């Protein structure tokens, strides 16, 4: 859906070849592309403006030609600046206070506050061995208190009961007293969702905050939030002494512009990412991951680095040539599989690929479907060289022999052959000409000022097609 920013930037920098510094006009165009990428990612407009001013200033003096192409140098600058803004040091919870350390959440309706409280409870109990108490001050949303109670039971932590006839302020005060008496290390306070324009409810949460004096007040925000994140974040940061942010639902394919908006506007660090509905689906924040997502380009730079570090160039080049000629066989496939394994396997690679963020999990599953590298390699190993290049030979007794030899079954051999055929078909479809074009494109991505293409290899060759819905051949 989104064009690859790297490619688009290459276009902006076409005119730059041979020069060693970025010019005002180059930068202007590149800035426009980045602006677009950030808008597509839902970064708040006002935040984009401030950010791009900063980038523009730094880009003017940017040196190119030290191994990086202009677009790479520019992207690196953008990445560094984004990481700088989004990063922040103080990423963990600060619970150093006289117990109970109170942690309170705040945010809009449905952002993921209650789920995050349960996840935090689990995290603190399992990883930091804390004695945790949770309480809900949400007397508005139907069954909100029951929801927390059920989750607390699942996590196996103490739940302080409350009910909808009570005043939220009293609920939290009682809970804190109880936590003190029972020597809980931490009290987690769940609150009702509220709109920032609802002054009555904003007053309420201010009162709650004063009542329990939390050491951590976390703003919970849905990573799918659009431009409104700016208004919301501002209002919550004005009303409460926020100490951090939890960004939820990052397991989806949202580009997550809200992360930048909220970070920029509140000035508070993003401390955790919600990565699923389960209670253990909470991760410490990694700025790099969010940054590459924001730009919609996967973790391109580190992918390039990693591939060039690990790929056996000669073999890779050979495969590509064979592919172009339609001679790609099972031993080439084995090489690819082994290389992929070396780079941390399919999943690790997919995470880093541009455009992967837009690909639904269902498709990913399909692509990964039955990728059991070791088994596949074992099967290919049990074949004779002739069988590897002439798969039509593999029938009946040969198939059984291969299955036995690899400790698999004939149906596994079938599966592998099918996948291989699919792969071949796809390569044919791409045809020689298209393949060459793609290689040229890849070379462009490598160094758009005419630097040598480096290492064409299968996993990378596929990159431009990913966003277009091309499936990985295996």
């Amino acid at each position, binding site marked *: 859906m989104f064009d690859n920013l790297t490619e688009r930037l290459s276009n902006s920098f076409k005119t730059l070849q041979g020069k060693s510094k970025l010019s005002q006009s180059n930068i202007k165009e590149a800035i426009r592309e980045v602006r677009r990428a950030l*808008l597509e990612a*839902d970064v708040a407009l006002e935040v984009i403006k401030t950010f791009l001013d900063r980038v523009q200033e730094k880009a003017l003096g940017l040196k190119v030609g030290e191994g990086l192409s202009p677009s790479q140098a520019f992207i690196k600058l953008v990445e560094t600046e984004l990481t700088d803004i989004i990063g922040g040091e103080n990423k963990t919870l600060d619970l150093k206070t006289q117990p109970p350390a109170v942690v309170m959440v705040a945010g809009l309706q*449905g952002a993921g506050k209650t789920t995050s409280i349960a996840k935090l409870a689990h995290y603190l109990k399992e990883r930091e061995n804390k004695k945790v108490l949770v309480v809900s001050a949400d007397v508005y949303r139907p069954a909100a208190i*029951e*929801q927390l109670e059920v989750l607390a039971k699942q996590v196996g932590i103490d739940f302080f009961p409350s009910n909808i006839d009570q005043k939220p302020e009293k609920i939290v005060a009682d809970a804190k007293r109880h936590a003190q008496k029972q020597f809980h290390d931490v009290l987690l306070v769940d609150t009702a969702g509220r709109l920032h324009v609802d*002054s009555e409810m904003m007053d309420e949460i201010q009162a709650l905050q004063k009542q329990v004096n939390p050491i951590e007040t976390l703003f919970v925000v849905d990573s799918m939030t659009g431009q409104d994140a700016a208004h919301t974040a501002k209002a919550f940061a004005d009303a409460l002494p926020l100490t951090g942010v939890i960004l939820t*639902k990052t397991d*989806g394919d949202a580009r997550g512009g809200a992360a930048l908006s909220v970070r920029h506007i509140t000035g508070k660090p993003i401390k955790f990412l919600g990565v699923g509905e389960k209670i253990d689906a909470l991760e410490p924040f990694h700025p790099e991951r969010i940054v590459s997502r924001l730009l919609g380009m996967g973790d391109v730079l580190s992918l390039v680095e990693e591939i060039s570090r690990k790929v056996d160039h000669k073999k890779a080049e050979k495969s590509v040539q064979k592919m172009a000629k339609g001679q790609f066989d099972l031993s080439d496939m084995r090489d690819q599989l082994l290389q992929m394994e070396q780079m941390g396997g399919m999943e690790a690679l997919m995470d880093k690929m541009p455009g992967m963020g837009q690909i639904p999990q269902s498709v990913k599953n399909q692509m990964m479907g039955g990728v059991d590298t070791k088994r596949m390699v074992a099967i290919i190993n049990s074949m004779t060289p002739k069988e590897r290049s002439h798969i039509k030979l593999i029938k009946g007794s040969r198939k059984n022999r291969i299955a036995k030899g690899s400790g698999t079954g004939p149906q596994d051999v079938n599966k592998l052959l099918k996948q291989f055929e699919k792969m071949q078909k796809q390569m044919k479809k791409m045809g020689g000409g298209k393949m060459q074009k793609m290689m040229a494109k890849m070379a462009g991505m490598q160094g758009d000022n005419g630097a040598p293409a480096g290492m064409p290899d299968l996993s990378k060759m596929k990159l431009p097609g990913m966003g277009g819905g091309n499936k990985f051949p295996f």
Partner: protein
Amino acid sequence: MFNFFKKDKSDKIEKGSTLKQRLAKSRQKLGSGLSSLLLGKKVIDEDLLDELEMLLITADIGINTTDKVLESVRQNASRKVLKDSDSLYEFLKDALTKLLIEDNQLNTDTNETFVILVVGINGAGKTTTIGKLAKSFQNQGKSVMLAAGDTFRAAAVEQLKVWGERNEIPVVAQTTGSDAASVIYDAYESAKAKNIDILIADTAGRLHTQGNLMQELEKIKRVLKKHNENAPHETMLVIDGGSGQNAINQAKEFNKTVGLSGISITKLDGTAKGGVVFAISDELKLPVRYIGVGEGINDLKPFNAKEFVDALFE
């Protein structure tokens, strides 16, 4: 947008909560809309177009749709069709309205139980919308039953049951963890047997990227279809009004898996404008059924394209 006076939470049956009144409120609040932008402007220049772009983008209309709209403004301005800012205002409203479907209303009149399957991502407002829909249908004199198809989220069943009590209508439910398709099918059998006019089925929130969960939805639909090929009569996607461009992916994926027939947008009582709905409606040709404007039982309005577009500019 659709901002209104917040009242006592326990008394959600508010007075003076027509959309018009709410809009009046938001008009007082947001003085920086298009009307003030255009005030006193005589010519259409790039500055004005920049400001327009800002306005559209901050309403979550998205850069692609914004470009599309502004491009047609540019063309018409250069061809002198748009002479001044007044005609620009009308032109813009018209261009945006054209992205929407003309007839958005949900018609539930059938001679069998009309089944509404409500789907969407986590926390979008599905269950709350169902609670409000039940009230609205009852106000039209229809009998309503609910099916607790969210068998996953903690206390989701209890939440729907509270909405059932508020509406004094039956809720067919099993325990958390049971099979959603079978809960919904049971409810359908029961609704048919009791001659209920409308059955509304809740489902667990799921991200459109979760293949297995999307398949579960597909199964729910398949099971219903097996018993009545017309059912579900409406498959409604609920979208959080605060969501950004990702809502387009959501709509596309849900549409691909279960075939949507309408969408509803929630949480428009804040400052979010829900502008992403233009791109969705435009691309998928889907009607927008309702908007949610609060957490109370009456805080649901049938979608009105003109009012919606007007509210962007106020």
